[in-house]
């Protein structure tokens, strides 16, 4: 289909749509009209009000599958740790940021539900890439990705999270996005 106003052009060529020539009295008239249209646009923003989320005071809620800082979990009824120290998360971790040292459970010192437990469970968050492979690898859902993303700190050593820190409830509660939000 050729453009009727450009019969000499083949159908592969599309004529460039050009605006009217700038300048002159007509140009000035158009510029005045367009200025008023632009002013209406900016005024609509004024009426609309700010869209700012004032971050430290307000937080953007995260999506349910957001991959924030890790959490370790306990069984709710017995209080025993879910982690059995199998080190599958260590094997899955592409950034090599998890360190697990397993130890045997004894009847006097029952820490986890299985035979062994993680005596040391450390995640170096300066290395973690938040891919969530540890969560996928875990056979007991002992480690999951949480919602917290405010992870800045003053020293690197403070960002090596120990088992106690990962088991504890997070201090800052990141709002979770509701269904359909």
């Amino acid at each position, binding site marked *: 289909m050729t453009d009727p106003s450009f019969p000499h052009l083949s159908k592969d060529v599309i004529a460039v749509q050009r605006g009217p020539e700038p*300048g*002159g*009295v007509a*140009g*000035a008239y158009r510029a*005045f009209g367009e*200025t008023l249209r*632009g*002013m209406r*646009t*900016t*005024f609509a*923003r*004024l009426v*609309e*009000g*700010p*869209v*700012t989320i*004032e971050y430290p005071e307000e937080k953007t809620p995260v999506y349910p599958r957001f991959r924030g800082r890790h959490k370790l979990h306990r069984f709710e009824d017995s209080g025993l740790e879910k982690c059995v120290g199998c080190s599958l998360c260590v094997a899955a971790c592409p950034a090599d940021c998890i360190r697990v040292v397993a130890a045997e459970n004894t009847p006097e010192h029952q820490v986890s539900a299985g035979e062994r437990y993680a005596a040391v469970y450390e995640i170096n968050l300066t290395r973690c890439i938040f891919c969530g492979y540890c969560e996928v690898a875990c056979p007991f859902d002992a480690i999951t990705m949480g919602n917290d993303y405010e992870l800045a700190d003053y020293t690197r050593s403070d960002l090596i999270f120990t088992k106690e820190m990962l088991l504890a409830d997070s201090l800052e509660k990141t709002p979770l996005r509701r269904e359909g939000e």
Partner: protein
Amino acid sequence: MTLPLAATDFVESTLIQVIKALVIFVLVLQAVPLILLLERKLLGRFQARHGPNRVGFHGLLQPLADMIKLISKEQSTPATAVPWMMALAPLISIVTAVVTLAIVPFGDVRRDGLLGADYGLYGIDVSIGILFAFAFGALAFYGLMLGGWASGSKYSFLGSMRSAAQLISYEVALGLSLLGVVMMAGSLSLTDIVIAQDDVWYILPQFVGFVVFMIAGFAETNRPPFDLPEAEAELVAGYNTEYGGMRFGSFFMAEYINMIVISGIATAMFLGGWHGPGPGYLDPLWVVLKMLVFIVLFIWIRATLPRLRYDQLMSFGWKVLLPLATLNMLVTAVLVVTL
């Protein structure tokens, strides 16, 4: 035939003139931070954000914080600069801006004898009226020019050259746009022009003149979309690149005072000055309100329009504004003579 000059039939005592000068100077210098805050808040709202809201209640103390920051900053002088000229330039800018304020009328002559004599609610009703404003508007450009040249930096120099070209181009249109009003009122004095607008404000019969005056006024104050002299995207900051501390603050303040001046002149020339409902003592309030409308317009336009390209600026000034203002003047002249 009488000359179109202001004629005051009374003499103000020196004391009253000093008091008036002090009141105008102090009040306007207080208004600058308020306009600054208004601009930043309103600009924020126009861009769907809050604007400054951290210092003080809803950011009310932001201009104060800015001032303290500017005052406490170091004033460096480049090795290539001419120091005394560089120090003189902001002074010229701010003095010419403040001086023009003197002719902005806030009310008619008062004969109630409150201060023991008749007095006018304006700084001074100079006989050449609006020409006084043009004279100092032309002088103001020496501030930018000197500042940019004496800084000894290429960006400053480019900015000042641009401002020179811009001011020359737009000053002609600015002057011609007001000629229609002067012809209709038959006087150069702003007070007489306001009095002549008792029936109808000149914005109606002189609408073309008003539009040309506002556009040229934006260019005269170097406000967006005509902020080429300080085009931060291309010239760092234009003529004030090398300035720091309160010298930069002076340039900044001069820009805002110029905005007040243009608003004041537009109010007196086109919006009927102090005319408004209510008793006589409300006159200054009406002037301030009308000026506020223009200042909001300045901010609104800044939020709306992008900066013009240099060749667009030039062709718009010479090929559109100047013919339009001339035509407006000629048509007005013919109508004033025939009607």
